[in-house]
């Protein structure tokens, strides 16, 4: 098994004709993802590289191709609308890569999502990959992943690749890797993902990569203590970040004394979850807590 995506994923790419959309459509296809449709308003009736049909609306794409998952590469000012469109078309999983969506727009998307039973991953995220299912939805570099039983969940992009690269080099493959995004308002949080990993028979251990800002990590620590019987290893980025400065990600900001790396690390330690001091310790901690996860 894997979480959120698998061999039944039928993907529609919103913004398929754009620079990022077209590049990553090819990348995802090469990795093995089944891409059934693309959407670019005004370009309906055409085909992407003479193969993938393009539609004007997501609804049409769903009706004609049975798409059940969408990935969004449209520019930030239009991305909130793209999420709502996919949601309204009854897409089950929407993965939004776009960075820089105004928070006000996202605050309106959230109740819309909840009313329709659609799961959103992101925005401002690298996406999700299930190496054993040869399926990826997003921009993660497929070549560094390998099938296995470690679940990875992270607020970051390249830091995740760094950690995955080390896991892979040390013989730990991954069941699913989920980039939940670096924005203040996101569709799927640590708890949703941890819950799915707990229920996933293929996942034997979890690596959680958090960062400064908000309280998601603290809530995740509580949740793990109560609900997970699988070993978890955590890492938190931003111990040296100054107060009040946005560190690249819109959500990575320490406000006053709240959202610091220190309080997050303490929350994990208090819950009995090992925290890697530096990224290169993560693989060793997985080895220590879940030696059987190497496959």
């Amino acid at each position, binding site marked *: 098994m894997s979480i959120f995506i698998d061999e039944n994923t039928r993907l529609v790419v919103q913004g398929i004709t754009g620079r990022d959309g077209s590049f*990553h459509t090819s*990348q995802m296809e090469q990795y093995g993802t089944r891409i059934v449709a693309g959407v670019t308003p005004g370009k309906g009736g055409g085909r992407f590289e003479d193969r993938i049909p393009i539609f004007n609306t997501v609804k049409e794409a769903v009706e004609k191709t049975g798409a059940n998952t969408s990935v969004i590469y449209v520019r*930030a*000012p239009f991305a909130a609308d793209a999420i709502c469109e996919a949601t309204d078309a009854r897409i089950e999983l929407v993965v939004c890569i776009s960075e*820089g*969506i*105004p*928070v*006000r727009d*996202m*605050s*309106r998307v*959230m*109740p819309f999502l909840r009313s329709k039973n659609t799961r959103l991953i992101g925005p401002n995220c690298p996406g999700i990959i299930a190496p054993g299912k040869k399926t990826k939805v997003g*921009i*993660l*570099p497929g*070549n*560094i992943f390998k099938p296995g039983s470690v679940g990875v969940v*992270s*607020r*970051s*992009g*390249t*830091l*995740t*690749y*760094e950690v995955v*690269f080390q896991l892979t080099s040390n013989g730990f493959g991954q069941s699913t890797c989920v980039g939940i995004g*670096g924005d*203040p*308002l996101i569709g799927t949080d640590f708890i949703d993902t941890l819950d799915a990993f707990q229920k996933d028979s293929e996942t034997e251990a979890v690596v959680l*990569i958090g*960062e*400064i800002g*908000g*309280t*998601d990590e603290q*809530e995740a620590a509580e949740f793990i203590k109560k609900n997970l019987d699988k070993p978890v290893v955590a890492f938190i*980025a*931003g*111990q*040296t*970040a*100054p107060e009040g*400065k*946005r*560190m*690249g*990600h*819109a*959500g*990575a900001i320490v406000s*006053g*004394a709240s959202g610091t*790396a220190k309080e997050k690390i303490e929350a994990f330690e208090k819950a009995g979850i090992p925290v890697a*001091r*530096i*990224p*290169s310790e993560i693989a060793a901690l997985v080895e220590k807590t879940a030696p059987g996860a190497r496959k």
Partner: protein
Amino acid sequence: MKIHEYQAKELFRKGGIPVPRGEVVTTPEAAYDLAKEYGGTVAVKAQVLVGGRGKAGGVKLAKTPDEARQYAEAILGMDIKGLTVERVLVTEAVDIAKEIYVGVIMDRSAQKPVIMASAAGGVEIEEVARETPELIHRTHIDPRYGALAFQSRALAGALHEDFKVVRQIAAIIEKLYDVFETTDASLAEINPLVVTPSGEVVAIDAKVNVDDSALYRQADLEAMRDLSAEDSGEVEARKADLSFVRLQGNVGCVVNGAGLAMATMDLIKTYGGEPANFLDIGGSSSPEKVVTALNIILSDPNVKSIFINIFGGITRCDDVARGLVTAFKEMDLNLPIVIRLTGTNEKEAKEILSEMDLHTAPTMDDGVKKAIELAN
């Protein structure tokens, strides 16, 4: 993005929130003239984008125009937490019977705005939250409907007993929410909101922070940006679409991706060094960006070595390496540079970089250690 009190008050005025008469001035003479025009006591307030102005001596009450001039003279040019005061707000003083706090912020956990109100105004709300949390009342707002009249009324009712005053506070709460909403604010705050002895309600301070991601559609607010209050490197980085934050150390960092950039800074600290900056060059490998990034870092005289940490995912390492070679040829670099490139097309990248005078490191840990050694 932060804006000044006088700018936030302008937004309040447009939104129908009562604020005392006032104007921003840059000379003691202009402060004198305004105080004379207003008559009576005026407040002279430093306009800087940090908290704690009062404690630093940046806010004074002047009973006469001469006093207004003296205070303006003392405050203008004053250094408050590293920022120089270039403007003062001269505003009519208001008699205070009671000080209230009202603020709107985005609650990340609840994923919707929350209005906070407290009868303990005039002190920092973080302090109230720590010492007497029961004095803070909160109401979450559904962003689709905005602040409903009954919600504002209920909050206002918890702050004052006189219903004539309650009605005014409720109206102000609704209007403050509208300001929050229409300006794409991440914070809109009145502290204190003052009830005068005669029962009028007036906002004597104003704070509005704007969501950076929404500035593309808030041209009027973008125009309020005070570049003089920002680090010159941070201003230049923003123009080039780079994320940069200056720190105090001597090891400069160039990294792709925000999470990896933070982890790199942390690692420098862990190994006994001090990072000079946060810098995310994004997924791009364009030589122009690398040149801009290096120039910003080199403009800091504290920097003694530079660590370039790139994880090539979709961004291919050989592309990044070509960008670096182009960048280095254009620049006159006299600092030691340590580079670590891992990921897609790593081998090709190493060949491209082999002609350059660089220290290469196989891992992030090795690179950081080397950069610290070279900085010291």
